[in-house]
């Protein structure tokens, strides 16, 4: 690929917008079901446990643990060629939900499954801030 491709960015939906607005303000927001008390991620219009529509946004700490990770030494698509090696990760937040993310501010050799991590906010466009994680 001769030219670097623009990175694919999320395009919020009416339902997910509060999540992305929260990140822009430096806050992690999750939905919690008022009917069955389940925390829900990714944002939905119905609870992924009981399908109730009684989901309410809450601010959470953004703290969690590293559930797993990989170091992609070949770009996962040409868009990420300038980011190799990519530190891909799955983080489990204190509320129990898991999300896909990238690790930042950490040396490869220091990454351990189970390590404590905290949210950090990476503004990638005027409208979009991605949720990344670093050692807590």
């Amino acid at each position, binding site marked *: 690929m001769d030219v670097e491709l623009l990175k694919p960015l999320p395009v919020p939906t009416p339902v997910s917008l509060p999540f992305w607005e929260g990140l822009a303000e430096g806050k992690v927001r999750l939905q919690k079901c008022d009917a069955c008390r389940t925390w829900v991620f990714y944002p939905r219009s119905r609870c992924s446990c009981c399908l109730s529509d009684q989901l309410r946004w809450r601010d959470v700490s953004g703290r969690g643990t590293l559930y797993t990770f*990989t170091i992609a030494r070949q770009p996962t698509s040409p868009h990420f060629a300038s980011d190799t090696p990519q530190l891909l990760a799955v983080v489990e937040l204190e509320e129990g939900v898991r999300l896909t993310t990238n690790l930042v501010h950490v040396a490869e050799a220091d990454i351990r*499954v189970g390590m404590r991590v905290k949210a950090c906010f990476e503004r990638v466009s005027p409208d979009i801030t991605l949720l990344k994680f670093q050692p807590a």
Partner: protein
Amino acid sequence: MGLRGEAAIVGVAEYPHRRKYDGPRMFMLEQWAALARNALDDAGLEAREIDGLVCSDIRESGMFVPATVVEYLGQPVNFAERIDLGGATAVGMIWRAAAAIELGICEVVVCALPALPIPSNPTPQPLNPMVFFQSSSPNWGSPQAEFDIPYGNLAQNCGYAMIAQRYAAQYGYDAEAMAKLVVDQRASAAINPNAAFFGRPVTCEDVLASKMIADPLHMLEIVMPVAGGGAVIVASKEVAARCKHRPAWVTGFGEHLTIKTPTYARDMCVTPVGPASEQAFAMAGLTPDLVNAAEIYDCYTITVLLTLEDAGFCAKGEGMRFIRENDLTWRGNFPVNTHGGQLGMGQAGAAGGMTQVVEATRQVMGRCEQRQVAGCDAVYVSGTGGVMSEQSALILQGG
């Protein structure tokens, strides 16, 4: 619950799997027709006997695929399905065909997954973003587009790598055991003329010295894309009785879907093939120790490891030891992927899983020549789609 075991695979067809394909290019409809004819010939059946069809996507049509295939073949059917289960598609095709036959709505069902290159389009086409995103949908509103692709979590390698890394943290990891799995399968591929790696065995050192793609997965633990494809005919008891070969009876199956992206799995190391296999064994009245071979979907080494554990061939966390202590080659005490698996055949897109079905059938029919497992009467087959998202299991038995 389930099948009575009165439908069987009676014929197979398979294109040689090749990294560099130098044969004539054909549209997928053309390949469909050729594979169908070859599989019918193998069984000893006529085209006009087709009364059911199971397909997946074809490049020429985005919708109305079954009707388009039926029209091209010129054979009306009573039963048609289009399966969207990624690598679990082939196994998904077989049990649906067997179920339709046992319901009495059809007798001869063609299941085909063509995967040779199609002719180059003389009209230049705009770049399709799916080329980059593969199994992850970039469409607006897709959870993958919003919560995975922006972080670079797309296609397959990194998802499987993260499952392997989680496994390592929970149960420990032995890179040499994973390398041995590749070595054993490549030993079987080395004597299979249809395999892309025919005549090319490897050593543990080769595997561990191959490039690290996404930790802990080395390049030789990951399937190589190839041209290929295959087809089978599933038929009723009455039809099977007049076919050329010993039928491979479909006596058990299972299918289980949980997630699209493993981030959201309840436990990344407990995979859908568990419930699918439990159902398949129960339906067949067998236990894992009673099968003579296992043709396990092997897009990556970690897929085989987790399937060995979750299907019940060994206990959870014991997979590495199991691989170390057993000879998994075609001549071994526990033959796995006797054709070389997809790690040895190469992966012909979504048709990859058909190689496992075709090989299991050939083993039961006793047609595997120098790689034939002696006295092969029962074979376990698995299929895996997405990133351990959707899995299927099948039991084929001789009569």
